[in-house]
């Protein structure tokens, strides 16, 4: 069994070839986001082309930097020159890119940034990019830098140093260190992680379990995915530290089924940890044992609830259980368990490696450390960022994300997934920490920020989230499964022009009743509707009383009409999937019986076809 020192020196050796390459090194970020735009094809093309040209270069896979909007990203590092990131390198652009490597050609047209703080000619530095400036990358330090499939890269960058420290400490000391960092659970509930670990440490029954909630089900949140597939060992190390600190026996890493790449990468990382004596029996010669198992979910949102996840592990439906007993007393198989989010565990190695004081040096008085956020929706730069807690939301949304598309105005920010509410544009300056969000009836949540602009309808969004809550309800509590269904019916009625004044009271009533649901799924389901009441009452009343959808999104309140003659109308006729654009005696009209309101005709003939309020005249 190798000691940590031996592992480290071997790893340093391997990493040197990457950090200071003797010949050109080409890094391709391969993660779910970049794979979706063809990063694997780019990787293949690069390998083929490098071999065909006989270039003196190595090609390597890395994870994701978080700049989803610029994927696939390829980094080229030539010996003695700064590394340059090139954006949107589809296979077709590979030859042009390789000219840079071969004979020092100029591909600055494809360049995104120079890694580091120094710009090179017309290419800006990575640190100066609006998306990057202001980020504090601790959890994401290795993301897009190291090969997620290579444990040596992780070790050479300080990986498993925290674990070796933890192995030399008494479990209570490790917990004390985590407690003094004031790390709280990143899954949304913001409960002290150290305290939670202490509950498990104090539990008497054996065996004890550590459970990782990597069932990142919130649509529009993908921070855990980014970490799992770009630096899986950070999670593994954190989980083993948690196991050592709580004297647990076994860990279950529960990853959602929709994330096949993270499942594969974490499984590989677990194997590597076993092979290197960092998990399993007699970890690094300490005499301590801790087993890890990766569990792949099967598509259920409530399995992201801690007790739902426990049920799912117990070979049955993933229905949330009634609390108490809490997982620390009776978790998996009614034995003591601790459940945390991926990001909570991933912070533990940093706390152990650098000390709680260093870790708590960023953030605010009450909320320490950094947090990852994903930006999506009506935002120019979709991606994942890591910022200190307390950073103004506007900094992340408007500066890093670049705000809403040209010519639009910000309407609201939806944070924390379907069980949370919306923050109106006027409050975009609030700091990213739990309290200001809670004050506005929302939750900051696990890191998903979905941006809405003035072309979006708030009722439409509420219908989506209520549909989601209804669809994913486990069916235990009537207040939840029937409550969300009634809520959805009422909202759909409003959006189809049949809303009535009494609906407002009914929605409020349902919102209050839902609080009696057992788990947070039912309790949180009406939140978005409640925040619509609070911040967008005018828009709701417009739907309800005047039967008008200001954003022209609610299908029951609008209809498509030919408003002008245009040469483009034949195109509209050709595209219509239902044959609703009809020509009669040379004039076009829309057959309202056939129209499904898909908007294709208006895309083809934007000035000729208009959106008209059904109940306007």
């Amino acid at each position, binding site marked *: 069994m190798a000691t940590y020192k031996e592992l480290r020196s071997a790893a340093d050796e391997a990493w040197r070839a990457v950090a200071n390459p003797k010949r050109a090194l080409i890094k391709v970020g391969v993660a779910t986001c970049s794979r979706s735009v063809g990063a694997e094809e780019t990787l293949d093309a690069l390998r083929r082309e490098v071999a065909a040209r006989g270039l003196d270069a190595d090609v390597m896979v890395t994870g994701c930097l978080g700049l989803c909007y610029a994927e696939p990203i390829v980094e080229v590092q030539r010996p003695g020159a700064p590394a340059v990131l090139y954006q949107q390198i589809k296979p077709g652009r590979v030859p042009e890119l390789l000219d840079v490597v071969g004979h020092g050609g100029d591909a600055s047209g494809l360049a995104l940034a120079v890694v580091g703080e120094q710009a090179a000619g017309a290419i800006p530095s990575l640190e100066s990019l609006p998306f990057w400036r202001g980020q504090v990358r601790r959890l994401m330090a290795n993301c897009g830098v190291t090969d997620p499939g290579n444990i040596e890269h992780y070790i050479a960058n300080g990986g498993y140093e925290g674990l070796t420290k933890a192995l030399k400490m008494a479990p209570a000391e490790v917990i004390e260190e985590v407690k003094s960092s004031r790390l709280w659970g990143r899954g949304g509930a913001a409960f002290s992680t150290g305290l939670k670990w202490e509950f498990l440490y104090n539990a008497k029954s054996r065996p004890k379990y550590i459970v990782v909630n990597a069932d990142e089900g919130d649509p529009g949140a993908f921070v855990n995915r980014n970490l799992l597939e770009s630096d899986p060992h950070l999670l593994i190390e954190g989980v083993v530290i948690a196991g050592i600190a709580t004297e647990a026996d076994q860990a279950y890493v529960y990853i959602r*089924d929709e994330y096949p790449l993270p499942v594969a990468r974490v499984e590989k990382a677990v194997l590597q940890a076993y092979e290197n004596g960092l998990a399993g029996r007699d970890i690094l010669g300490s005499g301590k044992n801790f087993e890890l198992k990766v569990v792949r979910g099967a598509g259920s949102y409530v399995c992201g609830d801690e007790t739902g996840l426990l049920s799912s592990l117990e070979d049955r439906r993933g229905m949330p259980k009634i609390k108490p007993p809490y997982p620390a007393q009776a978790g*998996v198989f009614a034995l003591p368990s601790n459940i945390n989010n991926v990001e909570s565990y991933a912070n533990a190695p940093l706390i152990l490696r650098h000390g709680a004081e260093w870790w708590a040096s960023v953030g605010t008085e009450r909320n320490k450390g950094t947090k990852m956020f994903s930006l999506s929706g009506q935002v120019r730069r979709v991606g994942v960022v890591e910022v200190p807690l307390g950073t103004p939301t506007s900094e992340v949304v408007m500066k890093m994300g670049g705000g809403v598309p040209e010519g639009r105005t910000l309407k609201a920010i939806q944070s924390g997934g379907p069980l949370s509410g919306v923050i109106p544009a006027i409050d975009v300056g609030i700091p990213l920490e739990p309290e200001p969000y809670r004050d506005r009836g929302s939750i900051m949540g696990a890191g998903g920020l979905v941006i809405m602009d003035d072309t979006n309808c708030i009722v439409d969004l509420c219908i989506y989230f209520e549909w989601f809550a209804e669809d994913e309800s486990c069916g235990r509590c009537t207040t939840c499964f029937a409550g969300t269904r009634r809520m959805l019916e009422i909202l759909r009625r409003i959006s189809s022009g049949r809303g009535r004044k009494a609906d407002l009271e009914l929605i409020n009533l349902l919102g209050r009743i839902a609080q009696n649901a057992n788990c947070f799924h039912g309790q949180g389901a009406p939140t978005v509707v409640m925040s619509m009441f609070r911040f967008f009452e005018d828009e709701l009343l417009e739907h309800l009383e005047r039967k008008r959808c200001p954003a022209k999104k609610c299908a029951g309140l609008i209809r498509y009409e030919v408003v002008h003659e245009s040469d483009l109308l034949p195109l509209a006729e050709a595209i219509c*999937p239902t044959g609703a654009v009809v020509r009669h005696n040379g004039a076009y009209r829309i057959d309202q019986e056939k129209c499904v309101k898909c908007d294709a005709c208006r895309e083809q003939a934007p000035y000729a076809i208009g959106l008209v309020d059904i109940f306007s005249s």
Partner: protein
Amino acid sequence: MFSQASHNSRVQPVSPAPGATEIVTRVNELIAGLRPDNVDMLAAFHRIQHEYGYVPREAVPLLAGHFNTSPAIVFGAIDFYSEIRTNAPAEEVVEWCSGPACLLKGSMGIRRALEAVLDAPMNGTTPDGKFELRLAQCDGTCHLAPLVRNKGNYLGPLSTSKAIEWARRLRGIEPAAVAAEETA
């Protein structure tokens, strides 16, 4: 989500479907290494689904026996998880992303258009059973919103028009022919 035929099968004894014994043998092989109370049932579902594209109903009693539980618990779990199927997927599955980023960027229009072009309701198949339209959950590839997936390929950002043209090509409908047919 369960078809009428399989509901009936729970009250009326039916003769085993052709190939049932092969399924029994194969499923037993697939789940051989898995143990009860070891967080293995989800893995069993995945292995069976990987082999068949769905979990055949012959597997339910086998799983129940293997995991020391009742067929009702096993079927309850299969029914609960939306990624575990109880029927074979169609040749072509078109996955429409239901996520909020896609929604805000116009995925509803794409859904309505796809339902019309493919002549299939969401989570249903075309009359000939060849194409299936399936509701997919957000996997965070929101830079492509609004998107659909087909055979692991992502198509996005889509406009409704692009989605219609793509779906027509998929179904082998010539755009020109469509225009002619509609004007005729």
